[in-house]
């Protein structure tokens, strides 16, 4: 066991994977010599050489496209997109190529690539360093979509993603890199070392894709969320005293629907929470599924709390971010119906 930040846990996962399997290669913008703008790949080039961890030209389509070719060859590329906000140039390669190669070739060619990208706001990054584009991936069949909320999961999910035979989009909530964040931006920042889930096992282990985790058991309402918002939901539950069951989905595609349905059938109320803009966000899919599966158990309309339908405004970071106050209000309203 070792105390790790999420950055260290991700680096450790890459280290373990590269050490165990020569086919694992890591590359992206500034990931080689420097070790990544968030330091997630620091030391890997020195340890495994320039052929297995290297800097790339600034071309996201090239990074993913080259990675697809490498995956088809038989390597296990783990590529980094510097910010999720910059994944769009690679979107064609992800959607049209990585996600469909197995299908198109009837399994003759496959694409075991992991595409890592920091996601979400809370760092005053403005419109181009704060986005949460997960719903643009969950609509793409053939992809798996993962969002860890803590160091333990980050390592285990990343190792599972690298071992997975299909392309995985791995979204890393950057606001959680160095500590949990419950949305109280005005309070002193806390570190992972004072958090149970900063206690990371050494060596190899996996957290299976497609399985949610119940972070807080409760009977009054179910909160479906992931990433940074898991911590916000937990804070809101404590602060409002609403006995909410907080589910950390961890994998958005494929979704652990059983865990979701079991919880909502138990609580009869459901709040869907994410940082991404509301309209056509992943919360829409969750709400659509829950109302279909739990219709006769629902005692109130499913509520969605999400980022407003605007770009992420620099100065209004905290008016935009769905913090504990907004979530708490929604929880109250949901349970008072």
């Amino acid at each position: 066991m070792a105390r790790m930040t999420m950055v260290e846990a991700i680096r450790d996962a890459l280290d373990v994977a590269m050490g165990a399997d020569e086919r694992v290669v890591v590359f992206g913008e500034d990931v080689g010599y420097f070790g990544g703008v968030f330091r997630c790949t620091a030391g890997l080039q020195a340890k495994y050489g320039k052929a297995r961890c290297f800097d790339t030209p600034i071309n996201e389509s090239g990074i993913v496209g080259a990675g697809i070719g490498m995956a088809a060859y038989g390597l296990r590329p783990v590529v980094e997109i510097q910010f999720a906000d910059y994944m769009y140039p690679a979107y064609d390669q992800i959607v049209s190529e990585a996600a469909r190669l197995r299908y198109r070739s009837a399994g003759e060619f496959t694409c075991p690539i992991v595409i890592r990208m920091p996601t979400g706001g809370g760092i005053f990054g403005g419109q181009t360093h704060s986005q949460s584009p997960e719903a643009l991936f969950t609509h793409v069949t053939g992809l798996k979509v993962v969002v860890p909320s803590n160091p333990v999961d980050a390592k285990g999910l990343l190792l599972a993603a690298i071992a997975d035979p299909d392309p995985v989009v791995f979204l890393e909530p950057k606001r959680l890199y160095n500590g949990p964040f419950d949305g109280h931006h005005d309070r002193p920042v806390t570190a992972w070392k004072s958090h149970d889930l900063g206690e990371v096992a050494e060596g190899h282990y996996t957290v299976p894709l497609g399985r949610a985790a119940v972070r807080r058991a409760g009977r009054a309402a179910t909160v479906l969320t992931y990433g940074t918002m898991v911590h916000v939901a937990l804070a809101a539950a404590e602060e409002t005293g609403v006995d909410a069951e907080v589910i950390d989905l961890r994998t958005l595609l494929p979704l652990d629907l059983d865990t979701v349905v079991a919880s909502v059938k138990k609580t009869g109320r459901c709040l869907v929470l994410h940082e991404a803009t509301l309209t056509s966000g992943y919360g829409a899919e969750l709400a659509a599924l829950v109302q279909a599966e739990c219709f006769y158990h629902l005692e109130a309309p499913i509520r969605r709390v999400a980022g407003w339908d605007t770009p992420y405004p620099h100065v209004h970071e905290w008016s935009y971010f769905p913090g504990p106050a907004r979530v708490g209000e929604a929880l109250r309203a949901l349970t008072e119906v």
Partner: protein
Amino acid sequence: MDDDAHDLPPLRLTVPEPEVRPGGRPDFSHVAIPRAGAVRRPEVDADPESIRDLAFTIIRVLNRDGEAVGPWAEGLDLSDDDLRAGLRHMMLLRAYDARMLMAQRQQKTSFYMQHLGEEAVSCAFRRALRPGDMNFPTYRQAGLLIAGGYPLKLMMNQVYSNAEDPVHGRQLPVCYSSRDQGFFSISGNLATQYIQAVGWAMASAISGDRRIAAGWIGDGSTAESDFHAALVFASTYKAPVVLNIVNNQWAISTFQGIARGGSGTFAARGHGFGIPALRVDGNDYLAVLAAAKWAAARARRNLGPTLIEYVTYRVGGHSTSDDPSAYRPAEESNAWPLGDPILRMKNHLIARGLWSEDRHTQAEAEVMAEITTTQKEAEAIGTLHQGLRPSPSDMFEDVYAEMPPHLLRQRQEAGF
């Protein structure tokens, strides 16, 4: 210096146009064509700057008399059988195209794309590769399969989307896939696979392997952004890849000038990246093979990428959905100065005493017979709307290695 600029005439938009449109007389006099054998053949490790000229000429081997001449002919040393095989592959491809076009008209499938006039490019290139090498083809390189000995029946099964289609009827006709043949699954998206070829080649280099990759792209598709990604990555990492551009003069209805813009040739694109570039007579089987071998040798020696532009002409429509007479003179293809690849190879074999008119007529009959027999076998299995087709439940397979719960549910809902 620009004080007078206010008196300058207003700006105008320039939009390139082909020399002729329907109604006009085809004219390729602007296409400068050097004598066969005239272009030098540098060492494979020559400094790119020292061979810039090779991107602005046309490397040709077969002359008017059907002789193989010049430095690019020398390296070839092909056996008589190799030569006859080359001709046969092109004849097979042409006959195959003819039959599949017909089949599409008979509604046995939805769509088809032919190679008419471009047979030499893919048929010859294939012979420069080794087992294990990987092509990332477009929809117009079926010669890679035919020259590799891939069963025609499997190709037909794919075109018919029948029960024995290797890709289970999931793909449009001509989107073949064969790992054994070093033929990467064709994507319908242009240019995306050019950078994948570079990535595959990088993977081979990372692994200390000896296999090389070949990327394929059309003249029009060089305008796509992934063309740039491929050249940047290939140039930076010296990837062992051959980057092929098939310039058949047209991109559906758009002439090559729209993609090429102000640069003299497509091969010249390589110069911005320090990538050696060759411009080759794409209707000359031997020239294509010679250039391909030169580029492959560079890749195998870890000398990095080579860009090759094959100058050819798309004689037929873009696809069965296209009627070229709407945008270019019908006679344009006859005016095309580089001739017909099959005719030129045939004349070469005759000049070498390996072939004759009679032998050719006979071969045409044999080839057509082989195609039609195979076609009957394929059709006996099924065609797009008749006979044995892949089971609908297969529709849900291979989206993932393991079918996730939501797809299991959907398959059940679909009743399969």
